[in-house]
């Protein structure tokens, strides 16, 4: 009866030699490719590594770290930035606890990133702040974990997320006549903080506009449809840099003389105007993905056009386009570097101005590589998450 037994599949383990043969030298042509690749890697990596380890002068980065992170934001108010960071991390932790794998993974990656920061040679004060951030994140995570069975909390957390841009802007910008939160004009915002604020305010304000434009483009009323199409196509046809340039020069001309709009706000207007056209196209894709039968069924049960849009069409359409809109946020995040045409000191602008400083002459490679790495860190993290989200949504569909 031996042959009736369930046998394990034959040989699954693969030794390193076998792996090399399979993946690098499977055919003669593949071996040649491997050889060429190794030569290329040696020629490029060798001088690069040599430079990074021996010749690079990284001193410009720790010396200007505060400028890179928050620009010329007043030193005595930097705690407000930390409070905002804590707020976001707490929310991230809460969501990580409340929702399934994806949010939890995001929270854990950010948490371990923060712990890694602790290992870098910061001053004790700074380490204390970072430690607070780590504790906030994991505190949120455990609270969320304890509350994960109560679904109603999820709605509350979503509302908190939606309110976050407003809270953060109020907190960083301050209020007039408030001793604790004294006003800090956006002309004093800078560095990575400004980069984030531009991207977040940009996406938050372009989203409603984009949804309206998408609905307008699908409207059965010709005038509304044409004007939406005109707006979307014109904006998509011009480079972002020209839109930023335009608002930075022309916005004050279009407003009454007594209204003062500073450069950061003008840039945010530009991002909102520009990104809304792209969001509109993404949302339109989602709207088209909603089957006609859904709209007919909604009408047949007696819902009016407005109710059909809000209860049936938009919920289904917006869900489909979440990944596309995360992608839009990522590209907006990268595009914030373009505000250099409006002479704003975001992360890239700050790097340029530090390089223009005679003290740090000739540190171009070091400084540019550093900021490129910072941008990469966030965009890579976001795009990985967005890819995972896409998969998760796709599986949940049917």
């Amino acid at each position: 009866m031996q042959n009736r037994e369930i046998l394990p599949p034959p040989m699954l383990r693969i030794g390193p030699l076998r792996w090399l043969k399979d993946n690098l030298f499977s055919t003669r042509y593949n071996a040649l490719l491997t050889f060429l690749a190794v030569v290329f890697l040696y020629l490029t990596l060798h001088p690069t590594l040599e430079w990074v380890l021996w010749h690079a002068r990284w001193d410009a980065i720790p010396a200007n770290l505060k400028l890179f992170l928050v620009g010329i934001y007043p030193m005595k108010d930097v705690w407000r930035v930390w409070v905002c960071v804590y707020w976001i991390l707490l929310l991230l932790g809460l969501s990580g606890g409340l929702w399934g794998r994806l949010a939890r993974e995001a929270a854990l990656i950010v948490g371990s990133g923060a712990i890694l920061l602790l290992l870098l040679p910061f001053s004790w004060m700074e380490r204390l702040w970072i430690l607070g951030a780590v504790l906030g994140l994991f505190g949120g995570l455990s609270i969320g974990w304890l509350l994960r069975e109560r679904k109603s909390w999820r709605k509350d957390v979503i509302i908190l997320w939606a309110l976050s841009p407003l809270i953060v802007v109020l907190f960083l910008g301050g209020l007039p006549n408030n001793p604790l939160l004294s006003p800090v004009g956006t002309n004093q915002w800078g560095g990575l903080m400004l980069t984030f604020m531009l991207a977040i305010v940009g996406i938050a304000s372009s989203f409603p506009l984009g949804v309206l434009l998408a609905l307008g483009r699908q409207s059965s009323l010709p005038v509304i449809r044409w004007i939406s199409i005109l707006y979307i196509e014109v904006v998509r046809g011009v480079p972002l840099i020209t839109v930023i340039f335009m608002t930075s020069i022309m916005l004050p001309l279009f407003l009454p003389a007594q209204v003062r709009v500073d450069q950061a706000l003008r840039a945010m207007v530009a991002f909102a105007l520009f990104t809304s056209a792209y969001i509109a196209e993404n949302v339109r894709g989602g709207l088209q993905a909603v089957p006609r039968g859904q709209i007919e069924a909604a009408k047949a049960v007696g819902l009016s056009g407005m109710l059909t849009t809000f209860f049936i069409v938009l919920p289904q359409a917006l869900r489909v386009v979440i990944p596309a809109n995360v992608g839009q946020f990522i590209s907006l995040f990268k595009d914030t570097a373009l505000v250099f045409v409006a002479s704003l000191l975001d992360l890239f602008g700050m790097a340029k101005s530090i390089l223009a400083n005679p003290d740090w002459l000739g540190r171009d490679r070091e400084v540019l590589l550093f900021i490129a790495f910072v941008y990469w860190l966030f965009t890579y993290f976001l795009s990985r998450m967005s890819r995972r989200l896409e998969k998760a949504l796709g599986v949940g569909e049917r």
Partner: protein
Amino acid sequence: MPAPQTVIPLWRDVRVLRILAQVIFVITLVLVANWFYTNLSRNLGRTGIHVGFDFLHLTAGFRISEGISFESTDSYGYAFWVGIVNTLRVIGIGILLATILGLVAGVARLSTNWLVCKMASVYIETIRNTPLVVQLFFWYTATFLKLPNVHDSLELPGPIYLSQRGLALPVPHLTEHFSSWSYFLVAGLVLACAVYVGRRRYLQRVQRPGFPSAWALITFLGTSALGWFLLPRSPIAWEVPVLSRFNFEGGLQFTPEFAALLTGLVVYTGAFIAEIVRGGILAVSKGQKEAARALALNNLQVLRLVIFPQALRVIIPPITSQYLNLAKNSSLAVAVGYPDLFSVANTIINQSGRAIEMILFIMGSYLIMSLITSAFSNWYNRRIRLVEH
């Protein structure tokens, strides 16, 4: 029997409501636009600016050292034209090189060779996830400007010279023997056509597949090569750049600004094209491959006859939009000081203060480019759809 048709009150008639909604929408828009316009004219009146295009004839008073020749005595209008030509130059070369790079990287990303695949994916993930303007700045200040002095230029095979002053390459030019060689070229073309037609007829008669175009190509190359060897001296010569006192002379020369912009755009767009190419090849379903295999086609035939035509259909539309992105991104030339249309317009604004007019010009130029591109892309999509039916 239905009741006799009653008159619908206007406020409940769907047709009237639809028109009313549009009228209200238009009125709102006009009111907003009017408010902007009033503010604009009031602000312009206050600052004493007037709007008009007469300034285009004024003398520019600045120099452009790139592209077609431009002197500081030329007009603003001509300066903008020089900018447009420079933009088109970088777009044209950029599209060509980015396509090649993207194809190579996209195919490499799918390679079964682990090392090649990983290298391609590191390239793609690094480049796609950092801002283009940072990359451009890096290419310019941290790469091209850090190259050695002209007198110690790096010499690459070719000879191609790389220095702080940019890139100098040999350029082919025609010698006096070219006119006699051109007879061979024409003869080759005629022969090739004849061979193509004859071979195709033959193949049709015997009902066999084959490559009549390859036969024609070989005929053409053969005839031209024959001509090349029969002539006393070669009809095309290479003009090699030579180092003079301050810079290279002769050959084809690119400024570091152009080289940095081009490299940045090509490397950046190439990474996006690579992802599209990879996606397009993966999009051809496994079933298609298996069906083709089952029909006893060999690997090359599967690729050429089944996968490639289908992948192309998926690939072309997003690649067109990447071309458009490259065109729009070329406006970042201003970050490295390459005088493209945006950066020239920027200079004109600084000199003449004519912001409104120049911004209209800039946007108009890019809009025309994107209209042309989308017209092409629509035409292509329609053609594909026709093929399907």
